[in-house]
């Protein structure tokens, strides 16, 4: 039967279409790595869109490139763990393909300093890219995702709940709906206390249908909140194309109806994303209110992945047999992979003379090694003590055990 829950990837059952060509998908995805592919194309359709980004220091641009690579290699490495390491337990909602969005947005934010001065980011159920871009400690995140006691959140939260307020990463939220509304509350607080901080929320196209969408945008507009709503429109929410839940071609249209500034960007191009974000951040800091950025993007893998996955099965980040109503045509996936955010970013840096191909390849190797180390550290961390589950319910103390009567 196909009524499965996420946790235990199960045989897809007799009725699942067996698709040899889809089975090949995973292999293809594995090839789309950092410097491997050379087919990236950069879209610079709308004139001098590199304006803000062109003013950035070489260092900053390289940092952005490095961030994209960190996200990519984190996932590649984690996927390898899932497929090959029987002891690995972490799961992930993969972000590969969307790296430029998180990177471009967070590059425009204030990510360090005292908590009452940094910008805050609210993430979704697909948080690891946002977390890395906002500057969390990657080894600690790796440890957290494998339920380690010394992980970023002590093993309490794992992937869908990672959080590090010290860098302004308020955190992931596994629910669709609430995060944007809560983020608008942070923006409300900034305005009330006269701070120039901004609040950013990343939300998928799926979030559009949630009633919270209306609350968020309506109040952001009415109260002129320093909120940036980044809609990552990767065309699908789980098993349905966004046209199943949204009558707009551009979701930004819906936001524009409230009188909110909107911007639609190529989410595969970190420079386009950065420029839009920079404009939004400047506006918000100056008291100009909210901005809605719709980044057109695509996730390479399927909705999520977990250990023990086999190519072609649910949880294998390949074709998903649950996708009855509407699913992703393989040609669509292949086409999007031709516009890989890693390739596009690298090409920009090379075009702008920031790095040459050799240096770009070196950076890639450096990041790969850094991530390998992160996994080594993370996966060698201690497991949690069972009784610690009774802590952190309230700020102080522990709650009593009740499972023994």
């Amino acid at each position, binding site marked *: 039967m196909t009524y499965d*829950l996420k946790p235990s990837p199960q045989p897809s059952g007799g009725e699942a279409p067996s698709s040899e060509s889809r089975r090949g998908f995973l292999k293809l995805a594995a090839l789309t790595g950092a410097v491997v592919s050379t087919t990236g194309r950069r879209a610079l359709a709308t004139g001098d869109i590199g304006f803000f980004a062109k003013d950035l220091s070489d260092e900053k641009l390289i940092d952005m490139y490095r961030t994209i690579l960190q996200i990519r290699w984190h996932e590649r490495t984690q996927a390898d763990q899932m497929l090959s390491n029987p002891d690995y337990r972490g799961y992930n909602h993969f972000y590969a393909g969307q790296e430029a969005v998180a990177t471009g947005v967070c590059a425009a934010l204030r990510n360090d300093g005292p908590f009452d001065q940094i910008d805050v980011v609210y993430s979704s159920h697909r948080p690891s890219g946002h977390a890395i871009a906002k500057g969390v400690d990657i080894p600690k995140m790796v440890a957290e995702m494998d339920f380690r006691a010394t992980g970023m959140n002590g093993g309490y939260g794992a992937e869908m709940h990672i959080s590090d307020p010290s860098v302004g990463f308020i955190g992931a939220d596994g629910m669709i709906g609430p995060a944007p509304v809560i983020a608008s509350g942070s923006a409300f607080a900034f305005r009330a206390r006269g701070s120039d901080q901004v609040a950013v929320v990343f939300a998928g196209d799926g979030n559009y249908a949630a009633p919270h969408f209306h609350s968020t945008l309506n109040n952001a507009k009415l109260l002129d909140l320093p909120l940036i709503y980044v809609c990552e429109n990767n065309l699908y*929410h789980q098993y349905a194309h966004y046209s199943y839940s949204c009558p707009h071609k551009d979701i930004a249209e819906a936001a524009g109806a409230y009188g909110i500034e909107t911007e639609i960007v190529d989410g595969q191009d970190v420079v386009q994303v950065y420029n839009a974000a920079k404009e939004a951040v400047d506006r918000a800091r100056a008291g100009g209110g909210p901005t809605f950025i719709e980044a057109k993007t695509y996730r390479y893998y399927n909705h999520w992945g977990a250990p023990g996955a086999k190519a072609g099965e649910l949880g294998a980040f390949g074709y998903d047999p649950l996708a009855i109503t509407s699913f992703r045509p393989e040609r669509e996936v292949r086409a999007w992979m031709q516009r890989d955010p890693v390739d596009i970013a690298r090409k920009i840096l090379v075009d702008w003379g920031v790095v040459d191909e050799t240096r770009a390849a070196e950076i890639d190797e450096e990041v790969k090694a850094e991530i390998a180390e992160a996994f080594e550290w993370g996966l060698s961390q201690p497991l949690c003590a069972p009784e610690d589950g009774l802590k952190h319910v309230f700020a102080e103390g522990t709650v009593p055990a009740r499972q023994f009567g």
Partner: protein
Amino acid sequence: MAQKSWMYSVLEAVQYEMQQDPAMTWIFELTPPVASNPNMPVINLETEFGRKRVVNTGIDENWMASAVLGAGLAGSKSATYIPYQGALIPFQVIQNVAGKLRHKTGGLAEMPVVWIIEMTGQTPGFGQQHSCYEEDSYYMHIPGVRTVVPSTPYDAKGMMHAAIRSPDPVVYLYPAGLRTLTQEVPDDAFEVPLDKAAVRMEGSDLTIVSSGAGMPGVLEAAETLTEEGMSVEVIDLRALNAMDTETIVNSVAKTKRLLTVDQSYYTLCPGAEVIARAVENVDGVKVKRVAFPDAPPPASPEMFTWMRPNAEGIKGAARALV
């Protein structure tokens, strides 16, 4: 008659009722109404009944729950499957509108409506928002809505028939942790009542009361305890509201020992209500409660599996009580 999985049994009931009543609708979000079972035809409500009656919506559980209510009020039987992530999003419309509608209209409102509310079944690893089992308490405090929680494929089918046919709105809790259970389930339609507990095992030393996802652990523990010589009576509540007080009281009057087992948080778990009803009606009862502590479920499997009530904990509590 064949060994059937939980969801196959449920969808068999839904399919039958939808075949009987061409007005009946089904609204889903991300779990397509499809199930298969060895040597049985695949059930796919979406293809069988078409997208006007079986609709895949956006991520808006409040719309789903409200829409079936509106469909019911307009005279169409209607059911929806709310995934566990949205289990409490439609709470207010069920509690404050549906639960009160019949009463406030002096009996005029008709609501042949079923909300299947999925509960995660406390999956290790997923943590706070994705491993919880707490909805039973919230929903069972609502008057005017029948809140039930089957624990076997047989009951799941029979209670689904009863729920769809009931003129009362029904919150049908589905503990998804039980999805792997299989059982002999008749092919034909049959009803299991929405207001009767089931005595799963008879005994005279101790009454254990549980429901839903608590039941497998209870049955496992009861088996061991029986082997150890204890005479255990096991009650599966099935109906949380209205609750079958009589079955509880009769049993406790006999055993004078009551152990309640819940996967829900301790404070105001269904067992609290069971205990209160028992001791209001029977003097001199000794009681114990096994429940999830008053903490959200942590992601770490080490923490989580220690906290989640299981057969070992139940056995220990039972031995301490008798």
